[in-house]
């Protein structure tokens, strides 16, 4: 088997402090915004009201696919209290989160593409007036054939949902090959082929999307919005409104949950901005829960085929993965999502040769996009179940199998991802120990089972969504004579605790309390750019920027204090709101005095810091998706109880170990992990973004099956099992104080661990989610009839794949370039041609 190329060890001397000396970092602590949250004083977007504020409502398409022939808003406009009706003509410029998919229009002008696509907007004095006026807008549609799923999309090139896709209703196809996969399969003792289906699900953040726009007294635009990506919204607004970005202020209000669902620029944001400018009065919109289901951008339904060659000892000789994605009606993050279905397979286990083929189709459904774990969740589900099958066939314990093939720290993978610290083996050992795995697996009584699965996730995408060579995150500090420190950063607080991360890092460096710090975040006027709360990037990227800014401020203070105390700077310690001589601690000044000394010496004290991820060695087209400064790792054991008579499945307990690098604030880290487990259990057992056809005698339209929280089932406090959380802390020098991500990774192993546990419990494979009692019963019936004891897809449709870009892996002498890039024969793809990341 080819050997992995070892990367040089990174220097770790830069580590700002050792664990013993840390006073804030790693200490369980009330988060800086906790008091606001428990007193109900956190101001979410819909909590803001302004004098003269008008209300906006959107008219949405009742048809999944139709041409708009005529819109007549005269009856609506005649209503008392209606100020304005907007249609596509008022907002003609298209936008989209990715530069390659500028396929959305705030209000559709000629075509609607899913039930719920916005067609017109009413702005009125009262919300009720706006709502009633929607019924008075007359729209004539010419119905078009509905494309309802990827299989239909593949065989129905016309009518095209978008002309911008590759061909017909295929949005994007990718094919990449790293090493000779066929050779790998020939070398294998066994080759496994399995097909899996991962159903789509939605974020279901409890806060509905809301936005409030106002033309400020100077005539510029300010918009408050529940967005995870104020910077990208800023750019989209500038484009759509044809305004200089300098005249637009985006304030991302704290999000009442995001999970990826507030990461696109949305119609309603464009509409209220336009309306506020036209009317010169504040305009607010808050989407109904039904509309939030239509905004979606959630988990792509993905059909997957895994072909894996293994040696008898469990080592993998080659992997081939094919994915077919239901993208919904717009591009959204879809190009990146397509690459993500194939990007991270190599980050957990040693895979010497890898071929990936992915295809995203357009369908007449709400657009899919990034949900927690983005599109790495679906293939992780397939890979971890297949490993369970491999382990069984080879007669190796699934935990032992994984320990044999687990990837090492600081290596370059077959697809040129640079791994940081890899704590997966520790995670597996910890979770095996605390769960009592060896006493449970294949040993529990019939109907009870235990399953194990692992995963990896990015700690921030190494490439921005639009090509630029600028920092990904910036932090500005202001140090006040009164001893206070103010942190300005564009990062958006979506509940994950990003404000607390910033405050904690600054407090640690300057030796003060987080309570002495005020954080202004998510405001494009006040803070330097941070790209947004997506791809688990904020702790590492904004955190490193904060660290740099704080170190720079500290250096100024240290110089001034050194002069005053006549003590060498290197002997100065910043702690407990004092700056003192480490050798003679009574030689000290207060932190406030230190600021004054520095201000007297240097003038006003401020500092900036920024962070740019390291350049990835991958240079092939599509290599922009996958690289990250470092990856987090997780292992989980799930116990299930299955009633063979009813198929009813419950989860009594979950054990999970996460390689966090370092926990900056342990209760917050635990909360992210348990929240990930919770959301994973929802996807594993019940959550479905499902569609159905209305009866023929009605419109026969393809509609969301249940756009309500009552019918879209999610786990309540009654279903949530006990979770035992273990933190594996091996600081990664790439992260601030060694920290890696935790917001997304811990969700990934949960679904496959549930599936593997079901097999352990009743001996049937459920190769798709959600794993419902009905599917378990069907599989049990198959088993009883002597057939293949499984439920899941059996077929992957033929897809005309493009010729794979062939990138020799590092151990075959590859340098990260494709050897057969047709557009650039014999030379590297330029940076710009790396696909956008997210």
């Amino acid at each position, binding site marked *: 088997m080819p050997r992995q190329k070892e990367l040089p060890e990174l220097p770790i001397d830069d580590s700002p402090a050792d664990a013993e000396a840390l006073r804030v970092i790693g200490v369980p602590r009330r988060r800086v915004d906790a008091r606001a949250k428990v007193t109900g004083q956190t101001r979410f977007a819909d909590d803001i009201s302004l004098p003269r504020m008008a209300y906006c409502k959107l008219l949405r398409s009742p048809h999944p696919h139709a041409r708009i022939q005529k819109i007549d808003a005269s009856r609506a406009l005649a209503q008392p209290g209606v100020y304005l009706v907007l249609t596509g003509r008022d907002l003609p410029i298209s936008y989209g989160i990715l530069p390659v998919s500028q396929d959305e229009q705030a209000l559709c002008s000629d075509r609607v593409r899913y039930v719920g696509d916005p067609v017109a907007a009413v702005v009125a004095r009262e919300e009720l007036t706006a709502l009633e006026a929607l019924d008075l807008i007359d729209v004539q549609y010419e119905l078009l054939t509905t494309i309802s799923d990827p299989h239909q999309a593949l065989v129905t090139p016309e009518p095209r949902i978008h002309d911008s896709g590759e061909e017909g209703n295929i949005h994007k196809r990718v094919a990449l090959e790293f090493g000779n996969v066929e050779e790998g399969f020939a070398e294998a003792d066994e080759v496994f082929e399995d097909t899996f289906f991962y159903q789509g699900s939605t974020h279901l953040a409890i806060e509905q999307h809301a936005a409030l726009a106002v033309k400020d007294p100077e005539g510029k635009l300010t918009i408050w919005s529940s967005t995870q990506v104020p910077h990208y919204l800023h750019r989209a607004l500038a484009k759509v409104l044809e305004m200089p970005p300098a005249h637009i202020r985006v304030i991302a209000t704290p999000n*009442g949950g995001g999970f990826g669902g507030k990461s696109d620029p949305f119609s309603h944001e464009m509409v209220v901005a336009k309306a506020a400018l036209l009317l010169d009065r504040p305009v607010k919109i808050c989407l109904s829960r039904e509309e939030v289901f239509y905004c979606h951008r959630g988990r792509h339904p993905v059909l997957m085929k895994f072909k894996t060659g293994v040696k008898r000892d469990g080592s993998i000789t080659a992997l081939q993965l094919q994915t077919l994605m239901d993208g919904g009606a717009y591009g959204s993050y879809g190009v990146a999502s397509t690459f993500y279905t194939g990007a991270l397979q190599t980050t957990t286990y040693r895979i010497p040769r890898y071929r990936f083929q992915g295809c995203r189709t357009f369908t007449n459904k709400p657009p899919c996009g990034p949900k927690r774990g983005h599109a790495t969740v679906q293939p992780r589900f397939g890979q971890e179940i297949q490993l369970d099958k491999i382990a069984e066939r080879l007669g190796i314990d699934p935990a032992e199998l994984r320990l044999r093939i687990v990837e090492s720290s600081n290596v370059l993978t077959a697809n040129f991802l640079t791994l940081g610290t890899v704590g997966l083996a520790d995670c597996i050992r910890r979770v095996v120990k605390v769960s009592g795995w060896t006493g449970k697996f294949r040993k529990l009584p019939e109907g009870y089972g235990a399953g194990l699965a692992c995963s990896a996730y990015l700690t921030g995408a190494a490439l921005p969504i639009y090509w630029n060579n600028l920092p990904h995150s910036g932090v500005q500090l202001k140090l006040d004579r009164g001893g206070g420190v103010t942190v300005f950063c564009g990062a958006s607080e979506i509940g994950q605790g990003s404000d607390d991360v910033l405050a904690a890092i600054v407090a640690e460096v300057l030796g003060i309390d987080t309570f002495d710090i005020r954080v202004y975040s998510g405001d494009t006027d006040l803070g330097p750019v941070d790209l947004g709360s997506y791809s688990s990037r904020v702790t590492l990227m904004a955190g490193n920027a904060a660290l740099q800014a704080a170190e720079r401020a500290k250096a100024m203070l240290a110089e001034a204090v050194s002069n005053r105390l006549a003590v060498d700077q290197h002997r100065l310690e910043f702690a407990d709101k004092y700056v003192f001589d480490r050798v003679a601690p009574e030689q000290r000044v207060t932190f406030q005095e230190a600021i004054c000394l520095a201000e007297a010496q240097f003038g006003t004290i401020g500092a900036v810091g920024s962070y740019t991820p390291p350049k990835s060695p991958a240079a092939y087209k599509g290599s922009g998706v996958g690289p990250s400064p470092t990856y987090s790792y997780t292992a989980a054991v799930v116990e299930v109880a299955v009633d063979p008579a009813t198929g009813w499945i419950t989860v009594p307990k979950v054990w999970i170990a996460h390689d966090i690098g370092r926990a900056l604030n342990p209760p917050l880290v*635990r*909360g992210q992990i348990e929240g990930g487990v*919770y959301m994973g259990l929802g996807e594993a057992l019940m959550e479905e973004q499902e569609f159905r056809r209305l009866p023929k005698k009605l419109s026969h339209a393809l509609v969301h099956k249940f756009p*309500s929280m009552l019918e879209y089932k999610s786990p309540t*406090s009654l279903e949530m099992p006990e*979770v035992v959380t273990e933190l594996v802390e091996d600081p990664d020098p790439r992260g601030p104080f060694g920290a890696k991500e935790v917001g997304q990774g811990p969700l990934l192993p949960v679904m496959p661990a549930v599936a593997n546990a079901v097999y352990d419990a009743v001996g049937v494979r459920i190769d798709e989610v959600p794993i419902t009692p009905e599917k378990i019963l069907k599989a049990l019936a198959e088993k009883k009839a002597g057939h293949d004891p499984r439920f899941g897809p059996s077929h992957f449709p033929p897809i005309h794949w493009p010729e794979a870009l062939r990138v020799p892996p590092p151990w075959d002498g590859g340098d990260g370039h494709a050897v057969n890039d047709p557009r650039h024969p014999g030379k590297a793809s330029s940076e710009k041609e790396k696909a956008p990341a997210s």
Partner: protein
Amino acid sequence: MPKTAQIRLTLNGEEMDVSFAPYKTLLEVLREDLGLVGTKHGCELGECGACAVLLDGKPVLSCLVLALECEGRSVTSVEGLAEDGKLHPLQEAFADLGAAQCGYCTPAILVTAKALLDQAASPNRDQIREALSGNLCRCTGYQQIFEAVEEAVVRITKQRESPT
């Protein structure tokens, strides 16, 4: 139908007259007419539990209660939990133990938990699960919420034993 209705109610311990459009729900009156935006909404159909307040001490979904029904009754929202400038032990425990992540479902969970503690001084984990089963939280996985309620019980008991 008159354009505005007027009722007298006790809001967070304070008796007051309130006028509002008669079709409005208690949720709308709290948020829009009284400016008490601590109470949230996630569906306005009685599905998510984010709008819970206490009506005569019992949790109700304020999106399903007409404000007109509240004549002469007592309403407690998250704004009424702190007393004499001090946070309620539930609020303290939620803040300390990471029970509020995004904080959107938190106000409703706090008042619902308060109603539980008012009638069962020392509820067990199952009673807490049951009491909060109508309040969806998408962030926490509930565990830190359960622990915070239990911690609040400990703190309340301590307070009673040694009042300061």
